[in-house]
């Protein structure tokens, strides 16, 4: 079935075309059902492809499907081709699976929106782009998907574009991503000129064979990392992601938490042989950027009051963990965390969407509280998501984060300490959120009038079509750890390292590389330490926000994200603006001024010359005569004609 892999993008493409043509007629909710069915179709094909690949011997788990020759220009021969291998099919499985659930949720969430069918049009286009991104056999096909998801992200962030903030946020996301794409493009150029092809097999093959020079590999790795930094919202380009929350909540869950923003992690994993042969400082750089982002975003999340903003910064922070994993050589752990994160973060976002829906479009957590009594299913599933992200065993997030921490310690104890501290912060801010929303005191009653309900306002639980995805995702968030359990002594062998076995040999750098470190020897202890930290964060938050034993510290500087975003905005509005205006003024005054100046000069000169046009024949004759004499003189004296 791996040869039918083209069906995975074909389904959402069909959905896109059908909704484009008949969306208005299908309307609410049929367009949503159609779109969901298409994504389900892709998921089914992905499952089929998975079983096909699993049944094959390890060496044959790759199948290239070439649709057509895409760019045949002299030396550049690029095919529109898909690569079905464990990494891409694994990505497809979770992308289409979670996308399907989010599509279902959106049918309920977007119900009644006048642009209902347009929403699903974009959503299908997004899924199409995303699977093209992960299935791409070469960098250019991936780039097509990469830009495609960026466009869909733009369209969906600005979905409610009559709101100024939404319109601006979309543009900001796209332009910031383009900065990253600049790196991606240059990486492709470098790769192409080094190996004469943009296909992954050629590039990785050259890296493995040792024909890729270290400097070239370094350049490619760093430039691709620049692309990843843009797409996956890492420092210094992270600032578009919190603003992206202007989009409808299912979009935040699908694009800005579960799938698109992890594309950078996927890309670096895809080219891991290149990173392996690049200079040593490259992985270290990646690890530090990831770690710094993780810490930075976690501190900002501590002081956010918008329910979605907390989750947005949390996403930035968790993505930082994934890059930390990549920088530490733990590609499997990065993918593992990507998958568990996709489940629990999608769950949390959809849960927040359910809350926003139930609260009549209220997003301020200070106006919530005690919602568990009114929204039991949402609260229950959200709590599972919370435990998963906080790193409480046996929920999924614990296993993936633990593995990252293990590799981090093997790389550098300093990094480990910072990462562990970030894990405490994560548990703390997520507990804060859960308490503010679902526990504590009901603060929404005093704001009821704002919602126009005049005392009658009551939060309500969402419809079944929204709750079903929550329940499924909660189940996944609880048990997904099973796909990659560590080799602790009491663990049965069959359960160990499932993901690593599956991804082998695409990702060479498994645990074998660190088996001789002290970190590895004490991994049981590390797991206990990580659990203790998670619990410490939770207990601390309970003391602050539930019991009110400790006064909450939420400095303004954190709420404002260390003023980073504001600085950039004022730079673009100040010196940036001045630069464009200066260029335009230069163009009008100097460049065009020279042209008009020449015009004036010629006219003035013409005015002078005109005075010679006296109209007297004898004057002209004299000039003609003089000319003849001069020419004759030139011919005779100069050229020796006579």
């Amino acid at each position: 079935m791996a040869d039918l892999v083209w069906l995975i993008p074909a389904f959402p493409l069909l959905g896109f075309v059908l909704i484009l043509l008949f969306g208005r007629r299908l309307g609410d909710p049929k367009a949503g059902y159609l779109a969901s069915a298409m994504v389900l179709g892709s998921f089914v094909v992905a499952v089929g492809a998975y079983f096909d690949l699993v049944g094959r011997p390890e060496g044959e788990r790759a199948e290239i499907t070439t649709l057509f020759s895409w760019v045949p220009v002299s030396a550049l021969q690029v095919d529109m081709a898909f690569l079905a291998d464990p990494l891409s099919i694994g990505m497809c499985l979770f992308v289409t699976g979670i996308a399907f659930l989010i599509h279902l949720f959106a049918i309920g969430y977007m119900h009644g929106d006048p642009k209902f069918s347009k929403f699903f049009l974009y959503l299908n286009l997004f899924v199409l782009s995303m699977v093209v991104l992960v299935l791409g056999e070469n960098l250019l096909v991936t780039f097509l998907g990469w830009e495609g998801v960026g466009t869909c992200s733009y369209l969906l962030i600005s979905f409610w574009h009559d709101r100024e903030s939404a319109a601006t946020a979309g543009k900001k996301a796209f332009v910031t991503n383009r900065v990253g794409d600049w790196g991606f493009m240059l990486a492709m150029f470098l790769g192409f000129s080094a190996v004469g092809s943009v296909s992954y097999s050629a590039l990785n093959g050259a890296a493995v064979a040792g024909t890729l020079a270290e400097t070239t590999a370094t350049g490619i790795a760093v430039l691709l990392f620049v692309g990843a930094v843009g797409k996956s919202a890492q420092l210094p380009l992270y600032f578009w992601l919190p603003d992206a929350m202007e989009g409808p909540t299912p979009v935040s869950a699908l694009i800005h938490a579960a799938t698109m923003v992890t594309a950078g992690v996927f890309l670096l994993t895809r080219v891991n042989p290149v990173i392996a042969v690049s200079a040593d400082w490259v992985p270290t750089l990646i690890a530090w950027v990831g770690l710094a982002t993780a810490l930075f975003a976690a501190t900002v999340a501590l002081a956010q009051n918008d329910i979605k903003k907390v989750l947005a910064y949390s996403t930035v922070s968790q993505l930082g963990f994934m890059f930390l994993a990549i920088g530490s050589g733990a590609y499997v752990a990065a993918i593992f965390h990507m998958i568990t994160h996709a489940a629990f973060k999608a769950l949390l976002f959809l849960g927040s969407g359910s809350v926003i829906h139930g609260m009549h479009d209220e997003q301020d957590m200070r106006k919530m509280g005690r919602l568990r009594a009114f929204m039991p299913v949402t609260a229950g599933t959200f709590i599972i998501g919370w435990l998963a992200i906080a790193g409480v065993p046996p929920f999924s997030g614990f296993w993936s984060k633990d593995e990252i921490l293990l590799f981090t310690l093997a790389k550098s104890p300093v990094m480990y300490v910072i990462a562990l501290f970030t894990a405490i912060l994560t548990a703390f801010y997520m507990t804060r959120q859960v308490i503010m929303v679902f526990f504590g005191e009901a603060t929404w009653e005093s704001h009821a009038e704002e919602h126009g309900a005049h005392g009658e306002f009551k939060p309500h639980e969402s419809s079944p079509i929204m709750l079903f995805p929550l329940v499924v995702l909660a189940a996944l968030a609880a048990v997904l750890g099973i796909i990659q359990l560590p080799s602790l002594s009491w663990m049965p062998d069959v359960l160990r390292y499932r993901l690593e076995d599956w991804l082998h040999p695409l990702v060479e750098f498994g645990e074998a590389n660190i088996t001789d470190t002290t970190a590895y020897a004490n991994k049981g202890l590390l797991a206990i330490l990580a659990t203790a930290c998670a619990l410490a964060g939770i207990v601390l938050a309970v003391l602050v926000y539930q019991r009110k034993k400790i006064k909450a510290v939420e400095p303004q500087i954190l709420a404002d994200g260390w003023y980073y975003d504001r600085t950039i905005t004022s730079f673009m509005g100040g010196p940036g603006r001045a630069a464009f205006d200066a260029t335009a003024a230069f163009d009008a005054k100097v460049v065009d001024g020279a042209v008009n100046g020449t015009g004036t000069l010629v006219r003035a000169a013409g005015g002078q010359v005109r005075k010679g046009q006296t109209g007297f024949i004898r004057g002209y004759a004299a000039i003609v005569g003089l000319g003849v004499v001069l020419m004759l003189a030139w011919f005779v004296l100069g050229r020796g004609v006579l």
Partner: protein
Amino acid sequence: MQTITTDNWLLTVGTFLPLVGVLVLIFIPKGEEQLIKTLGIVTAGATLAVGIFTMFRFDFGQAEKLQFFVDVTWIEVIRSNYTIGLDGISLPLYLLSMVITFLVMIYTWDNMPDAGNPKAFYILMLLLQVGMAGTFIAQDLILFFVFFELVLLPMYFMIGVWGGEDRRYASLKFFLYTMFGSALMLVAFLALFFQTGAESFGFAQLIEAGAGIDRNVQIWIFAGMFIGFAVKVPMFPFHTWLPDAHTQAPTQGSVILAAILLKLGTYGFVRIAIPMLPEGAKAWAPVIAILAVIGIIYGALCCLAQTDMKRLIAFSSVAHMGFVMLGIATLTEFGINAALFGMIAHGWITGMLFFVAGAVKHRYHTLEIKRLSGLLTQVPRLGWILGLCAMASLGLPGLAGFWGEFPVILSAYNPGFGLSEPLFRTLMVIAALGTVLAAAYLLWLYQRTAFGEPTEEFAGRTTHAVGAAVAPDHADDHHDAHHDEELRDVTVTEWIAWTPLLIAIVVFGVYPQLMFRVFDPAVTELVARLGESLNP
């Protein structure tokens, strides 16, 4: 250069058929507007039909050869021949000119510029078509020059008569600036002719003989051609006529100007300057590349400061043509292929953007960005078309614009014939930044015009059907006579004129090799020939 002479009547018919239309139109009374428009469209349609037939007769397997070749004596005394032919480089441009003229004429059906007089307008467009098509088939320098100049006058009148408020200044500037370039170009042509001592002005002879000219002389002759073509492209710093011409030109003029006229300059480089003067081209290539990249960044920065939609699109042309020129300056197969693709893609995309700008102007009577807002609310389809074109223009993969940018930047990594790699790689990095800026100015434009709520000034106007009920309340507040006029979304005429371009933008974006396959053999031949003279 090998030639094929089968069906060689096709090009002459295709090029001069519009003149038949002109002859007929002259005898139709001015008042018969419907008849005039119909005849104009029929003529352009027939011309396009001949063009399409030509395409089917074209042997794509031998796209590097000049096909439909004719070579007869024309003006014996100056040894200029009527030499015409078509190869893979010129075929797409030749067809593009026919398609654009046809679509523009359809658009004019109910979008006649305010000055009226469709008779003169259609005659000018037909004349323009002769000049454009002729430029792309000419294989003789004098013939080329005549067609090249023939284009100038109709466009001058189009801007000068049917243009906006500053039309006289803009049209005169356009005319004089281009004439200035042409004068230098003509001198360069003559110098080339005399220096080679060639038998005729035929391209083939001059390409044979040009390489033999002393390097320093080549550099001087190239300089003349460079200025002539660079003004037309236009390259920084010769671009300032363009924003004025575009802003003042009627929509039809802007579309033709952007889609075809600018390409005459880039085509001149590919067809004449570079193959005839290889050493000159090599010496000038770094200069061209530097100016091209300055144009990319400079044009984009200027875009960010514009307040007028049409002016912004005009400056974006400076940036986009910068990519085209960078591709040509690399002197590689790859770069020239991409540059040619970029020329065609820019024709569709920027042509469409000007169409949309015209439609906005028609509906709102202004193109000032700050007065426009909420197109997606008031005229959603128009808003969507603008969005698609903006995305195509910023080089989104999957749409045509990408293939004129991405491979160009890539080609700068390894420029041909020993051109300085450090220089071109630096330029590559900077040019790639241009794509970031392109996203910034186009999305800024889109946000300002299409997103948001309609501005107060136009908020009362609703899309047709509901319009009449709301409008009268506001009619007293404003003296704008157009205020209570209802807003229409994209009309049938507009759909007919635009759909082919929109389809082309998507189809060639997804499947670019349709076009690359046509160019590639001819470009390969061109670069191989360069190689013979540069690395003997």
